[in-house]
């Protein structure tokens, strides 16, 4: 697994990152994909204490919620970067949402069978250090300026 570091955050070379939602997509066999939250999305959410996911099978639209995350008494929706049919939620993070605090880049949230429309949606995601690093570094800078993450 190829990883790279941006401003102290570990990112994965085989993941596609969504600049809009701070979620990542890992493509699997065929049309299968797993979705997770990137480390900035996790950090700005706070210390995750609870997680709920839609019950599969469920049609998920790009920009639509596939679950909810609770951190510091804040409940917010988990927004999908791609469209597809949710086929599974990750039982490990459902049982222990704190796993996301430790390593959000490893622990996936849901598995999808991507819709054909997702092919164009994937074009809006970023992959590879040369594309991901500049965007992610700018986001870190933006969140630091806003005081949303520590210097």
């Amino acid at each position, binding site marked *: 697994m190829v990883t790279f570091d941006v401003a102290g955050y570990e990112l994965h070379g085989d993941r596609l990152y969504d600049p809009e939602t701070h979620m990542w997509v890992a493509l699997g066999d065929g049309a299968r994909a797993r979705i997770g939250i990137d480390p900035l999305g996790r950090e700005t959410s706070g210390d995750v204490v*609870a997680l709920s996911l839609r019950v599969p099978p469920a049609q998920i639209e790009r920009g639509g919620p596939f679950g909810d995350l*609770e951190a510091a008494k*804040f409940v917010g929706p988990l927004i999908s970067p791609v469209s597809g049919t949710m086929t599974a939620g990750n039982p490990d993070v459902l049982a222990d949402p704190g796993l996301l605090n430790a390593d959000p880049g490893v622990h996936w949230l849901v598995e999808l069978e991507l819709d054909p429309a997702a092919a164009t949606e994937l074009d809006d995601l970023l992959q590879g250090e040369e594309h991901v690093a500049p965007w992610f570094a700018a986001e870190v800078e933006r969140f630091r300026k806003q*005081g*949303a993450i520590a210097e």
Partner: protein
Amino acid sequence: MTALRVVDAGTVSALRSQSLWHGIASAMGPDDGPVLSLCRPAQAYVSIGYHRRLEEIDLDACRREGLPVLRRRIGGGPVLIDHDQLFFQITMPVRRAPAGVDRLYATLLEPAAAALRSLGLDARVDGLNDIAVGERKLSGTGAGQIGEAVTVVGNVIFAFDHERMARILALPDDAMRAEVLRLMRRHVSSLRAEGLGDVTAVDAVAALRAAYAAALGAAPTDTPTSAAERAAIERWEQRLVEPEWLRGPGQPARPGRRVKVRSDVFVVRGERAGIGVLASVVGDTITNAVVRSADLNGTAGALERVLVGSRAERAELTRRLAPFGDAGEHVLHAMTPALEERW
């Protein structure tokens, strides 16, 4: 100057005291301005956070006391709400809200602390999201994204019925209930308890309105709810009473029991191999401990003495309890699931 819409709903039903701000948030568009909404419930009820298990509430006790239970679309635990509390909610479009949960609370709860200061209390935002005077919490808070809006919710507590709050919690035994009540009395306060029994809801509304307007640099404007907001409120009133909504999204049961009294103050209870442990944690330190077992005599007292003063974390507890062999290990495993919960 931006306008701050103020929706003061006055005294409303228990259901409306929840649906009001759920509806305002649901109806909010990305270009709308902020809304400060306020209300007081006419009757008492119990509100539970979105992800919390209904099993945390003694539903029989609620029925006996005539307390409806409503699940909210924001976080936090079960709370007793009654007419001695004024609810306030500041709601704004997601893209205009401060980024990051820490900054969201710091920015949108500080005006509530300022309002309490203007009423004569030395209030401050304490920790991430408590509003406190000294070691006493003065406002329950929570937040969430509903539709395209973020809302931060709090209350001004004129008086608080600690005993009733303790009665509605489902707890494994009376010893835990007594300890939760003791810590609530010490750490959850009210305007009346702080010597401000003459402050009225009108005073509190005026203080909140002025403080949020000043903080947001906005001119406060009293407005009724719009037709779109009223429609959304109606939809939430239907949804909030649906049995499926009340059951919640379903969370796994975890061993042990933990009750948070305020940030960094909580009581834990656990069992292992016939050994029961009840412990209170203030800050990061165990301040009170009771160990019960039919098989332990003097050792139980020794274990309690070792626990009190220990940091409430696994490594130190493991070290301190190691000399007690199996009994120490059972105490450790009885406590740690509830200690390590993050609620």
